[in-house]
């Protein structure tokens, strides 16, 4: 057989080395390209929403600049008149909007923190926001759970929906941790 690096033994040696050297794996065996955050089955082009070579997700809608008529660009005129961003002033609708449209951003956490202040809780497994239905106490309660009717926020249909839940407390997120500036 060919005994240098250009035959089967050479391939085998490289594969064996790659088992212990993670740097070699990416060249020896490649990587699963479906985990790079691109929807390779999309019927639409990917490039219009491509957020860059190191982005794990596509562009958010608010990140895609578009050339609009100059008349639409009123930000120069109203800039000084806008109130500062303060979450405790906003309705639930806007808080949910901020939460769902700012994935991976501080705004998502700030929106989550304000929702928590308003007695919404994020269910870590079901991945929905839940709150107690006003005036409806749980029908069953234990040290680690409770059961009853709650509202959950249906982000697909954009509305609060009543539903019976059996809630394990450890499945609910505690108060969201807001990272320190520069951290």
């Amino acid at each position, binding site marked *: 057989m060919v005994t240098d690096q250009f035959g089967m033994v050479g391939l085998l040696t490289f594969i064996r080395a790659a088992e212990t050297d993670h740097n070699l794996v990416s060249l020896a065996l490649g990587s699963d390209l479906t985990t790079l955050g691109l929807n390779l089955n999309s019927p639409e082009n990917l490039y219009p929403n491509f*957020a*860059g070579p*190191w*982005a*794990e*997700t*596509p562009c*958010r*809608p*608010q*990140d895609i*600049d578009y050339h609009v008529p100059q008349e639409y660009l009123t930000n120069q005129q109203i*800039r000084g008149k*806008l109130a500062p*961003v303060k979450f405790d002033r906003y309705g639930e609708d806007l808080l949910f*909007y901020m*939460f*769902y*449209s*700012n*994935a*991976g*951003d*501080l*705004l*998502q*956490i700030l929106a*989550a923190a304000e929702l928590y202040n308003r007695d919404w809780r*994020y269910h*870590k*497994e079901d*991945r929905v926001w839940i709150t107690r239905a006003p005036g409806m106490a749980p029908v069953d309660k234990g040290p680690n759970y409770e059961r009853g009717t709650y509202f959950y926020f249906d*982000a*697909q*249909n*954009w509305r609060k929906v009543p539903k019976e839940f059996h809630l394990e407390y450890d499945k609910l*997120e505690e108060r*969201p941790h807001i*990272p320190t500036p520069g*951290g």
Partner: protein
Amino acid sequence: QLTVEHELQFKMLQAAFFHMPHPSDSERLRLHLPRQPCQTPLYYPQVSGLDPLV
């Protein structure tokens, strides 16, 4: 083996690695709601965007 030139190139690349471009570097300046990427819990939605109809 890497040549001396390649080693130098790597040093430069390595230095740049510690201040890689930020997504906002290629975007219009946004004063009111600038990007502030941060680690969010894995159980939060990881992709932004909502159904366009919604």
